[in-house]
């Protein structure tokens, strides 16, 4: 295990610099204080009951010394932290905009090129990206540890952050602001692609990358989609109700809708529920699910249904 996640953005090295300097200063003071503490506690331990101790009540030069030195150090640290922060908060002019919307408990990304992805952010190596951020319901916080960036998303107002991804790879996106039951399941991935790979992704249809996925059996593809597109944040596979109904035994189930009519969870009902979730609400659930129109293809939905069928 490494001390700190891989530095995969232009900002990461700079933040690490601040962390390192403070760490070194902290270690110095910590060692100094604890060494003195232990040394004094051992050296001056009480040996006899009637030991004489000197009447020392203070020392002005010493006290000025240990007021002034930490003060100077602290102000320098403030300046260092501020300088890096300023850069972190000032996106370059040539950055591309990607809009991210946080919703309990999904990330939706809208790209400058008209694409739309869910929970997976695709970025091109060495091109600065500015994230324009907004929340649909409650506070969320967009956090990519490998990039050392974090910013809360607010309903009713845009916030922003920026970074230039420098290393090809896949990194975690966490929601860092508590947002309810599915908070810890509000995970995403940021995929940094080489310029060539990015071009291919940009031209491709749908969001899944390549033939390897297409060749999966439908139920396995469905399971992959279930995990990657955030279905798992609200729908369990063990029968427990998190936010929405569990996928376990869902296929073929019958029941009553909000308007009193009955439904049978056949292929068509499930497809409608994924594309227009609010249209036919089952009694007892909140209308909170986003539409997956344009995010899941018909093949994807078929795969998800195939996966559901395996969950008896």
């Amino acid at each position: 295990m490494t001390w700190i996640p891989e530095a995969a953005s232009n900002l990461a090295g700079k933040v690490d610099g601040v962390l390192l300097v403070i760490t070194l200063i902290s270690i110095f003071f910590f060692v100094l204080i604890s060494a003195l503490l232990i040394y004094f506690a051992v050296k001056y331990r009480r040996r006899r009951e009637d030991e004489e101790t000197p009447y020392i009540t203070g020392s002005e030069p010493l006290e000025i010394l240990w007021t002034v030195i930490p003060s100077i150090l602290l102000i320098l640290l403030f300046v260092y932290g501020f300088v890096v922060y300023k850069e972190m908060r000032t996106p370059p002019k040539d950055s591309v905009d990607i809009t991210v919307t946080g919703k309990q408990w999904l990330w939706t990304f809208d790209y400058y090129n008209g694409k739309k992805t869910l929970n997976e952010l695709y970025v091109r190596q060495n091109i600065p990206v500015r994230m324009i951020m907004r929340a649909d319901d409650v506070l969320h916080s967009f956090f990519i540890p490998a990039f050392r960036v974090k910013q809360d998303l607010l309903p009713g107002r845009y916030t922003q952050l920026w970074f230039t991804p420098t290393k090809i790879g896949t990194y975690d996106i966490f929601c860092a602001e508590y947002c309810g039951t599915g908070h810890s399941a509000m995970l995403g991935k940021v995929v940094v692609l080489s310029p060539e790979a990015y071009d291919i992704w940009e031209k491709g249809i749908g969001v899944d990358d390549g033939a390897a996925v297409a060749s999966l059996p439908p139920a396995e593809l469905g399971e992959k989609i279930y995990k990657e597109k955030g279905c798992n944040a609200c729908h369990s596979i063990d029968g427990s109700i998190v936010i929405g109904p569990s996928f376990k035994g869902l296929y073929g189930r019958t029941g009553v809708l909000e308007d009193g009519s009955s439904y049978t969870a056949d292929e068509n009902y499930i497809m409608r529920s994924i594309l227009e979730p609010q249209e036919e609400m089952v009694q007892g659930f909140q209308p909170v699910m986003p539409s997956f129109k344009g995010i899941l293809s018909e093949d994807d939905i078929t795969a998800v249904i195939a996966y559901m069928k395996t969950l008896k």
Partner: protein
Amino acid sequence: MANHTIATNVYVSFLDKKGFLSWFLTTDHKRIGILYLISISLFFLIAGTIALLMRFELLTPASDFVSPHTYNVLFTLHGSLMVFFFIVPGLAASFGNFLIPLMIGAPDVSFPKLNLASYWIYLLGTIIMLFALLQPADTGWTFYTPYSANTDADVILITLGVFVLGFSSILTGLNFIVTIHKMRAPGMTWHRLPLFIWASYATAILQLLATPVVGITLLLLIAERSLGVGFFDPAKGGDPVLFQNFFWFYSHPAVYIMIIPAMGVISEIIPVFSRKPIFGYKAIAYSSLGIAFISFLVWAHHMFTSGISEVAATIFSFLTFLVAIPTAIKVFNWIATLYKGSIELHSAMLYALGFIFLFTIGGLTGVFLGALAADIHLHDTYFIVAHMHYVMIGGTVMGFFGALHFWYPKWFGKMFNESVAKLAWFLIFVGFNVTFFPQFFLGVQGMPRRYATYPEEFQSLMSLSTYGSWILGLGILIMTVNLLKGLFSGEKAPQNPYGSLSLEWQVPSPPPLENFEEIPHVTDWSYGYGKKKEVDA
């Protein structure tokens, strides 16, 4: 030092009167202190048990012990109970009540009936809180909007409970300020006051003037849920970040309400067991006031990533660094007090030294969070959790345990088993570090806080943290049993077992009903240990 009080064998101890009503209707500050002590200890144990449950759930990445919703309820309860029911009233109300009149040479606080009323209000708050447990909130102890305004759980009751508790805190602070101003014994000038009194004074100012702001904030949250008021609701033109501004205007000073009394305790324990005058008395005394004042000016350092303006973030970061200075001064002064002392490693002293050690880590990691760039990465991760617990457990709780062991003989007139106390200290110290030190690394690696489930890459450190919590829990259990056992079967405590010069040790243990047979005449400060040379500082 004052030696006017004659310790006679025949006296009426404040503990002598028996019966429920003699406690429930008491206006004796020492008894009210005990009532608070029992209440806060109970909440400490309950909230601590909840913490153990949470750590048990976090042993593995999946949510296999409790559901995510239950986990969220657990950390909300743990936070709210620990913060509002244990640590905010904590040392200030229990030891503050017991010690302030004794230390300044007064028979009681200025308003004894108001003091009792404060405790009743505290009880009322706890009763409301118990009802809130029926449908517990899942908002976290910070009640951030808009989640707290929209969640299905019952947020109104728990916030109402905290609101009511606030009044207890305000009235206690008010009482202490007036007491310290008006009830000092003759000769007890400001610069002869024990440092615990300075600390209590600074704390009381914070209690008095910061608490009403959280009161109105929670009231507005209640109005938001019940009347549809929209100050924090973006859909109605409100601003969720405004809630955070208001909330932290109280809750940052509240951090100092929690820690300053512990600093006061440490400043009392160290000179006694070093047999040395406290080093830099005035610097420690004024730094308490300094910390209290600056603490009103740093609240937004909890909000650097929340969407506040960059200008505000910069100003608040700068002010945050300022608050580190008086804190550093205190630590250096404590260390210097040890120099050339005659140090006895009594269990209370071990807690005090443990405090310095852990609080230094807590303070230094605070510097990371004050620095803007570093905070962006570390905010809302386990680094915050670790830092906060190093300050709150490593600081306040260590101070609280230290105070318990130090003043135990005075308060209850009994002795506890010192060897067992040292063993418990060792377990607590080790267990605490094993629990929380790994969390700094988890935070740096990006593990967010308040996660019911977590990615597998964090498992080894998370499990280590859970194992540590078991050691910590065992240590606290042993300590509790040891102290309780002492109450029933402990030896009778002498009047002044450590040879302290402070006023409270010059009366019998436990102190008589109105503390002093005759109001003492103070002629010197209470830190006059050691051999004076020709030149007096």
